[in-house]
């Protein structure tokens, strides 16, 4: 598969050039956040308080890694189901997040917010946490350390493989009818 290398953080122009189905290799910094961290971030935004991490142009990876064995940067770190985070996503995009990484389709409100905010949702391969781990070169806690695996970690990745799942133009890799997908 021909994959396009992309340097993080992405700009609006970078995002607008992407189309659903494009394979990409991401390199640069990203933040992790899953259910509990999303809840806290959105509660903080609603309360009008400052966020503990900068979301402007950020890439947010939905993952909760396993602990690193001694001498390792991180344990298994594949994507979790993105649809669970749909209720929080428009707020995170409005706060500046530019790219999201998870697995599975998003709802119409997220698709609309991606178009409005010129942002992109990538899918990584679910269940490939031992493989994706090898693309992660650094891992530090950025916020909410008390949440353990659900804390926000700052990762540096090199050639992290993803597919554009929902683009900034309303396109979705999941949208085609099943029969068409099977024969395409």
């Amino acid at each position, binding site marked *: 598969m021909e994959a396009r290398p992309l340097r993080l953080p992405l700009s609006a122009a970078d995002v607008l050039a992407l189309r659903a189905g494009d394979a990409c290799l991401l390199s640069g910094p990203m933040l992790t956040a899953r259910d509990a961290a999303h809840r806290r971030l959105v509660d903080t935004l609603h309360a009008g308080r400052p966020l503990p991490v900068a979301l402007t142009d950020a890439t947010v990876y939905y993952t909760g890694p396993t602990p690193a064995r001694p001498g*390792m940067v991180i344990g298994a770190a594949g994507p979790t189901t993105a649809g669970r985070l749909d209720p929080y996503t428009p707020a995170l995009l409005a706060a500046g997040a530019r790219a999201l990484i998870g697995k599975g389709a998003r709802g119409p409100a997220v698709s609309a917010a991606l178009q409005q905010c010129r942002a992109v949702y990538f899918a990584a391969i679910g269940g490939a*946490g031992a493989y994706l781990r*090898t693309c992660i070169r650094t891992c530090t806690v950025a916020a909410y350390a008390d949440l*353990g695996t659900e804390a926000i970690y700052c990762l540096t990745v090199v050639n992290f493989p993803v597919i554009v799942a929902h683009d900034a133009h309303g396109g979705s*890799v999941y949208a085609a009818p099943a029969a068409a997908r099977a024969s*395409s």
Partner: protein
Amino acid sequence: MKTVHTDQIRATVAALLEDACINLPADVEVALRAARECETQPRARHILEVVLENAAMARRDRVPLCQDTGVTNVFVELGAEVCIVGGLLDDAINDGIREGTRQGYLRCSIVNDPLRRVNTGDNAPGVLVVQPVAGTTLRITVCPKGAGCENMSRVSMLSPADGRDGVTQFVLDTISKGGANPCPPVMVGIGLGGDFAQAPLLAKKALLRTIGARNPDPLYAEYEMELLTAINALGLGPQALGGLTTALDVFIETAPCHIASLPVAVCLNCHATRHTTATL
């Protein structure tokens, strides 16, 4: 009467849990290789190649196959002539889960309460199912179950008039609605009959079978193959990005049920299907 100490149960559960999370079972690996050869689309083939490479890396690096090391489901066949000493069975099993989680660098994925949601910090408790059997057997199966596939599992109280067609429709709906979330290609466990509580348990137990092991009743063996063909004809494919392999196998378990009921449960398992067994 055979005597088994809880220390032995604890150590066995710990070792089984670590092994299950890291090592993909041989039957699943063989099925994934066969699926890769069948797929014609480059993307589907590529995904299955990555999934197989993931299994090799997990084994090499002693890292879990998936970061979601799951809720630890433990199935115990407990012989009538087995006497457990040293404490309670469920305490020994939960201690084993704690020990295996620490030793294996597994994720702590359990919260203490569904609404308070504070992580227990030790990955316990698990879910324990004890089945009484004859003799001196003590057989423990550990099956860590990730939430991606568990959340896409469903149960329905169909009417007897819905019959086999109704069951087929419910199974196909469940797979379609799940999309990419349960990480296809999936294993499909189906519980038919029993009641509202028993059908999901049958579905979960069905997932403990080895790929290719058919229901001994020819009616259900044939139905398993029919459903597998129908599921793969949906075209979702690996990660629901298109392809021929949406499911690797379908397993049906049945139980008698009420004259007015046709309970059906579909329990999905991801391609990183994990289970290990030991007999003490």
